[in-house]
């Protein structure tokens, strides 16, 4: 097997374009970063900054065309996923790199029970498991769902948004991935549920030692969970550092602007700080 000395994920000079010719957009423009074993890295940026494109590129989930992987490499456990065959890639997707997305309601299949959907993932990625039902119950238990055995027969519409996201996380964890990619996992949820889901992810990180890549536009939610922060602005990485360091001493004006625009309780601001993109562009 591959050596454990290198980082789990190493992205080198990745470039992803959309379209071609005059209308080409460099959605991800020459970025490099890494995620070590057991590390949680937050990728923070606004809509259109390229953070989700980066996440989806890890297992080549973007449709080509319109997307083109123009350059760079994505080394996962030392193997370049951009060069893998479809067949080999399928063994990475879900099994080694699992995803959870925004809007859990649309990620779950409405016509199948929770048990069916979790079991499907387990049977596909862990054929050695004999008692699939017990494994599904264990996964639901891990994400803090009470009476998991009774919940197995439920359909997605019978669950609240927060519970649906827990089921998505349970499905991802059932495959025992090395890296969990959480793409805006709490954006569609109430703040109270957001807190529960973030607490859950932190809990899982401690229990399983899994690496997490957390994609978000909200600097407010990462402080308690991320070891490192990568800030993206218009397809480029403008800052990369330890979370505490970045939050206390942001180096790039865009990072500072993103931190400042989060509303703070009791801050007594007359106005919220909005982001002046022209100013950032000029100073960058």
């Amino acid at each position, binding site marked *: 097997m591959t050596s454990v000395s290198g980082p789990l994920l190493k992205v080198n000079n990745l470039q992803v374009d959309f379209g071609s010719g005059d209308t080409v957009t460099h959605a991800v423009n020459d970025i490099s970063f890494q995620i070590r074993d057991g590390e949680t890295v937050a990728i923070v940026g*606004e809509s259109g900054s390229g953070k989700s494109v980066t996440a989806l590129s890890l297992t080549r989930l973007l449709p080509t065309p319109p997307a083109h992987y123009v350059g760079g490499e994505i080394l996962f456990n030392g193997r370049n996923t951009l060069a893998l065959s479809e067949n080999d890639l399928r063994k990475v997707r879900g099994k080694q790199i699992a995803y959870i997305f925004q809007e859990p309601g649309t990620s779950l299949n409405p016509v199948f029970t929770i048990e069916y959907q979790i079991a499907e993932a387990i049977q596909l990625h862990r054929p050695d498991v004999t008692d699939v039902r017990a494994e599904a119950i264990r996964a639901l238990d891990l994400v803090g769902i009470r009476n998991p055995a009774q919940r197995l027969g439920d359909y997605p519409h019978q669950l609240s948004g927060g519970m649906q996201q827990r089921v998505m996380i349970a499905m991802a964890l059932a495959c025992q991935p090395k890296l969990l990619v959480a793409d805006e996992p709490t954006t569609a949820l109430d*703040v*109270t549920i957001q807190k529960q889901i973030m607490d859950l992810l932190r809990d899982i990180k401690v229990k399983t030692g899994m690496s997490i890549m957390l994609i978000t536009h909200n600097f407010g939610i990462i402080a308690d969970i991320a070891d490192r922060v990568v800030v993206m602005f218009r397809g480029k990485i403008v800052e990369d550092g330890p979370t505490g360091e970045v939050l206390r001493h942001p180096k790039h004006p865009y990072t500072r602007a993103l931190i400042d625009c989060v*509303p703070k*309780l*009791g801050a007594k*601001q007359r106005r*919220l700080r909005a*982001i002046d993109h022209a100013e950032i562009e000029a100073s960058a």
Partner: protein
Amino acid sequence: MNAPATPLLQVENLKVHFPITAGLLQRRIGEVKAVDDVSFTIERGTTVGLVGESGSGKTTIGRALIRLVNPTGGTIRYNGKDITFLRESQFRPYRKKIQIIFQDPYNSLNPRLTIFKIISEALEIHFPALGLEQRRARVAELLGKVGLKPEHMDRYPHEFSGGQRQRIGIARALAVEPEFIVCDEPVSALDVSVQAQIVNLLQDLQEELGLTYLFIAHDLAVVEHISDFVLVMNQGKIVEAATAEAIYQNPQDPYTKRLLDAVPKI
């Protein structure tokens, strides 16, 4: 005339119950008390924040105020006048005074209409005397007010970002020169950076036009920032009502404390 002390909106013991029905004949087997005996007032020119989780009944209150749902009981007084059970024709003048901005800027604009048509529809109903040129001029002015350009009026909703669409929703609400706007989670679906722009815009417009807001949200940090007075709602009831400052500094109800605790801290 009204005495200057009359609040713009007085809500007393408002109840909105939805029936639960079952069986072939849709027999009534119970009811959901979405809003259960709620009272509050809003003074002219101020912002009252209404905060609570999904299912707490906050959106139903907003919808009852603009008559998108019918109240089961209680009274709603607007400028001193009871408007709770007015007939639709009698309620019409209030549709001009009371407007709403919705949460989801993607589903609240008709994708097949141009921005001009979307904003101008309300003008055609409430200002029938205006000709096409006058309406175009008015829409251009409204787009300017919300930080968009006059040339945007001939485009379609899909050409705009979430934040821009929310600006269009605000321009549509302003078209009929309302006094009172129900802002139903106007920033919940937006990036935090865009959220700041929209909240600032709402505050600027309030100052400029003397508007009164009911600001509904689940995020106490945003509500505390924009509101003069805050109502905390849980399971159909108001569990705490206090100034924005008091809510933050000295929360009384355990539910309020839970909401405060959930706000991310940097």
